């Protein structure tokens, strides 16, 4: 009887940890799918889309997660197949440098103007 109880507890613990792993994978999958653009339906992520293309991408993301690919590796895989356009969060390159650098430049410019004005007022 004791052996059965122990086995039951072990089985329960194993099932729980497996459930947790599945939940974790599902969270990661949803996070990735929300950051991938549906190429045939405008303004929709793969997560929101029901298109044939979205279905294929959902399958491949699931497959790659099960093959222990990291989030970064999955984005890189998709980028190699479809280019930067497929990812909502684009990499810094010649087409996106304005997007990345403009906020920093404006921040620095604003800071410089404020600093100059304060110094002028003090003097």
């Amino acid at each position: 009887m004791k052996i059965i109880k122990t086995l039951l507890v072990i089985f329960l613990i194993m099932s729980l940890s497996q459930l947790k792993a599945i939940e974790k994978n599902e969270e990661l999958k949803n996070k990735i799918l929300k950051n991938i653009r549906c190429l045939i339906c405008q303004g929709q992520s793969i997560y929101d889309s029901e298109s044939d293309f979205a279905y294929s991408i959902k399958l491949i993301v699931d497959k790659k997660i099960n093959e222990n690919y990291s989030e970064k590796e999955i984005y890189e895989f998709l980028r190699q197949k479809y280019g930067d356009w497929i990812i909502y969060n684009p990499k810094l390159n010649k087409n996106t440098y304005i997007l990345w650098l403009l906020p920093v430049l404006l921040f620095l410019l604003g800071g410089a103007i404020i600093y100059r004005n304060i110094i002028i007022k003090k003097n």
Partner: protein
Amino acid sequence: MKNKNNLFILFFFLSFCFVVFYKGLNNSNTYIPKTDDKKSVPIFKAISLYSNSYISSEEIFKKNNFYLINIWASWCAPCKKEHPFLMELSKDKSLILIGFNHRDNFDNAKKFIKKFGNPYSQILIDDGTLSVEFGAYGVPETFIIDKNKVIIKKFVGPINQDILKEIKLIIE
């Protein structure tokens, strides 16, 4: 002097905004696939429609020939339109045609082949992942693979007379 500086900054800022928006408006906001990107054939394993057994990409591309990968489905109307062109291409001995049957009912796929003819030397079942491995995003799509096992050309949409001529020129 101060006003002159402010005016210059304002002019510079407005010009900059104009250039950015002008450039942005000219950019397409839809996905345009690259059709001339040269990529190696991905490594994959897939189930054959007729033998129902797994075949690896090494086994498929072992011959020193040009290969044509065609993604098709029995439910896809443009696939019916391009089928006669595929039948014509299958007569060329230097080209091996491989069909990826994309998310289809197997019986319908077999009926399609029986009705319109089989241009493929191998038909593989594609649940959607196989076409993603090749960077496809719709049906039909066609890829030309050279003797070095490099994808040299991609055709989005059905094959027509012009594409047929282009493929024949490539494999010549």
